[in-house]
């Protein structure tokens, strides 16, 4: 398992970054500053068109800031000579896996990125075995990627990126085109990867229910950073998250109804299990 991990997570710094897709036009990201420490698992939320995805593009040097600097482990994304060092550190997963699957079999797909890193065949084979086991892709290895379900495709895309052992995994709405089954598969992977101290994770999403997958939440609205705190803090207090068009996670709304009925539900973003526990405890309370 050790082998599939980066030796150390990446440090990311945005220093007063402004970027507009058309020079002189409305900035997609405006005077944005933030620092992400190695191993942090960060979820970025915000309304559509808020600049969330642009942050990931800036991070991977797919676009360059017109003002300010983006630094990955201290390397400026504007330093064209070190582009390779940045791309090797940042593994990007897109919304639509069809946009990043290029090979004829799942096995070749996972190998593709590593071949481009110039890894030896034996090393490639070893890493394929590792990520295959880890993401449960064993049965799919010889299948053509285009014949897989959406969730399976996205798992293959994640596996191919993880096999390259990026210090930072950046995901742009990885579940938005998937059905529930597919989303659950990606969630369990994100939970596991997010817990690794050796990998920095940036996950852009529109789903409030996914905010709890990270330990830190950022809200970007109108190209600016408007919130930086824990997921629980984001949804605490009435109306704060709603101001940016973010609904509370469904389990929080249900928790509120249960409190109204006299059950004692802990604060924060509860899981379904937490809710059932609260109800069961309430029953015991009345029985004794």
């Amino acid at each position, binding site marked *: 398992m050790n082998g599939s991990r980066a030796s150390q997570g990446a440090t990311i710094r945005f220093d007063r970054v402004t970027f507009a897709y058309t020079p002189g036009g409305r900035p997609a990201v405006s005077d944005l500053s933030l620092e992400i420490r190695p191993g942090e698992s960060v979820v970025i939320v915000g*309304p*559509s*068109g808020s600049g969330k995805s642009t942050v990931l593009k800036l991070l991977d040097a797919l676009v360059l800031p017109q003002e300010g600097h983006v630094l990955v482990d201290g390397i400026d994304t504007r330093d064209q000579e070190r582009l390779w060092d940045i791309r090797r550190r940042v593994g990007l997963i897109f919304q639509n896996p069809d946009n990043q699957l290029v090979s004829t079999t799942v096995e070749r797909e996972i190998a593709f990125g590593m071949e481009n890193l110039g890894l030896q065949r034996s090393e490639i084979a070893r890493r394929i075995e590792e990520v295959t086991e880890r993401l449960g892709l064993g049965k799919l290895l010889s299948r053509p990627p285009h014949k897989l*379900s*959406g969730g399976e495709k996205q798992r293959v895309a994640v596996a191919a990126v993880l096999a390259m052992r990026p210090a930072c995994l950046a995901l742009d709405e990885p579940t*938005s*085109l998937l*059905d*529930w*089954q597919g*989303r*659950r598969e990606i969630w369990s992977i994100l939970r596991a990867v997010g817990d690794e101290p050796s990998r920095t994770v940036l996950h852009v999403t*529109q789903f*409030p229910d996914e905010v709890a997958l990270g330990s830190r939440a950022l809200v970007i609205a109108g190209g600016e950073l408007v919130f930086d705190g824990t997921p629980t803090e984001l949804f605490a207090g009435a109306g704060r998250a709603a101001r940016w*068009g*973010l*609904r509370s996670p*469904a*389990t929080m*709304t*249900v928790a*509120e*109804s*249960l409190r*109204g*009925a006299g*059950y004692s539900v802990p604060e924060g973003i509860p899981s*379904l299990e937490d*809710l*059932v526990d609260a*109800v*069961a405890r*309430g*029953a015991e309370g009345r029985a004794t």
Partner: protein
Amino acid sequence: MTKRSSELTITLEGVDVEFGSGFPGAHLALRGVDLTLEVAGCLAVIGPTGAGKTTLLEVAAGLLAPTRGDVRLSMGDSVSDSPLRSSAGLVYQFPELQFFEDTVYEDVAFGPRRMGLDESEVSARVADALERSGLSPDAFEGRDLTTLSAGEKRRAAIAGILALERPFLLLDEPTAGLDPATRECVVDLLLSESEARGVALVSHDLELVDRVATRTVVMNEGSIAVDDETSRVLSDVAGLEALGLAPPVEYALLSLVRERAPAEARRVRRALFDARVADANT
């Protein structure tokens, strides 16, 4: 919409649809489907990927002829002579990928103009359809389609179908990929349209289904597995999960409470239901 359109129904009887008939790899997308769509209310069609949901909408819209079986439009007891196609409007998944005019006005006006309406009627319909989609006509009619946000594009695309003023509105995954704010607009639109016409939608989003649909059909492998009141369908949590569908949190919780603390089920049910009634009143 002519006389007594409240009795208008679309009926599918024993419908099979086979793709690639007679060729290797032929695939039966619908198998013996019986379904009636009425001209008011909202029907949801749910089911795993590949269950035949989209094919069902295409047949009901008159865009795809069944391989076997019958699909017809009836007025009361008699078969209507107007073609199915001019009675139903179908909003495909990601309809904003099908814009082909330059401005919002031109794109929404495309359908009504092909119906041969005069320009004053066309313009009235465009304004009305945009209004119903939550886009102010004054602000949006002249906009270049490429400058709209993703949510605005979706609403403009739906307006193009609303402008046809068909008695049936069919939608395939109308909220897929939308941000929460636009999703709320679509919820409002579905609720108000289903008062005036028959709405049927395909969706993976069971929370949406719970809020808008009175009746729900579950499809699996081309057949209708369940056809019942939405709240009853969503209460079968185990059945939904077996098909890879996510029941809304309220239903999932209630089902777990029934297992682990059955004596609390009624109280929890009331708590969740009361909260909803309160929501609806605010």
